[in-house]
């Protein structure tokens, strides 16, 4: 695949993620933070998000299984998840977290369980999408330099 096709594929896929609401402006901010000194910054931060979110989702599941549900604790976890998803631009995950917090406030266990299911779903969707995106990620500037040397006579 030549360089132009690769670039186009990356851009098209990324654009579709914005259109479908998976990513928002904040993801663009993340990309702008990446530079030659930290060429893998976006992948690193997103990986941190994946790890941290898995932990939070497990904690949430456990907390909702308890006899006496500690809604404050659940709210604290959802607040964390809302914060991190917002920080990386995972918009759909963030939106579910907002609804989740409302159910916590109402101490509505059914609502909370429903939201947990939804947030799990949105989380795995965005995870899959981002993993695909990074597989077709734009090579860093150094790679483009070498690639273009090869591709162009």
């Amino acid at each position, binding site marked *: 695949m030549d360089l132009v096709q690769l670039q186009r594929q990356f851009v098209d896929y990324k654009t579709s993620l914005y259109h479908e609401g998976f990513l928002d402006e904040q993801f663009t*901010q993340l990309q702008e*933070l990446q530079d030659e000194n930290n060429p893998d910054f976006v992948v*690193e931060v997103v990986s941190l998000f994946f790890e*941290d979110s898995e932990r939070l989702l497990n904690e949430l599941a456990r907390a909702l299984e308890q006899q006496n549900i500690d809604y404050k604790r659940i709210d604290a976890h959802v607040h*964390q998840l*809302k914060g*991190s998803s*917002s*920080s990386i631009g995972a918009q759909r995950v963030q939106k579910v977290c907002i609804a989740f917090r409302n159910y916590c406030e109402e101490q509505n266990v059914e609502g909370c369980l429903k939201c947990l299911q939804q947030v799990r779903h949105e989380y795995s969707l965005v995870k899959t999408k981002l993993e695909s995106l990074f597989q077709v990620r734009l090579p860093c500037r150094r790679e483009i330099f070498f690639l273009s040397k090869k591709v162009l006579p």
Partner: protein
Amino acid sequence: MLYQIMDGDYGGSCGGCSEDMTVEFGYEPHVLAVDDNLIDRTLVEKLLKNSSCKVTTAENGLRALEFLGLGSDQRNSLEGTVSKVNLVITDYCMPGMTGYELLKKIKESSVLKEVPVVIMSSENIPTRINQCLEEGAQMFMLKPLKQSDVKQLKRHLMKYRS
């Protein structure tokens, strides 16, 4: 992404300003960034480093106070010393000690009270914002932070220093 500035200046674009804090300050300002969320801590650190700051991070208020020399076992150890940091930027919602409580502790210290403290929050609650500003916070910033927020912060700090 609103932020309130104590001196009533809502900032505007500053076309002539250099992007590099080193040029502005003549040195790298040392910032203490406090946030219990790992992703946010990573982000704020990068944002600050991109603006030529030296950054120390802390995951909660207690660790922050220890770093500043205000830990519970460090009473009076700061007498007559100069603050290690030029700015503290802290999240509001943290378990244990909130950003507001951390702000109060810093402002109560004779050595550290002049250090500007910026509060960050994902929630835009006017009473919270006012409470922080009244307690002496330099600025209140909404998360998620962007590079332009840090640039605005830098411009504001320049005015504060002069």
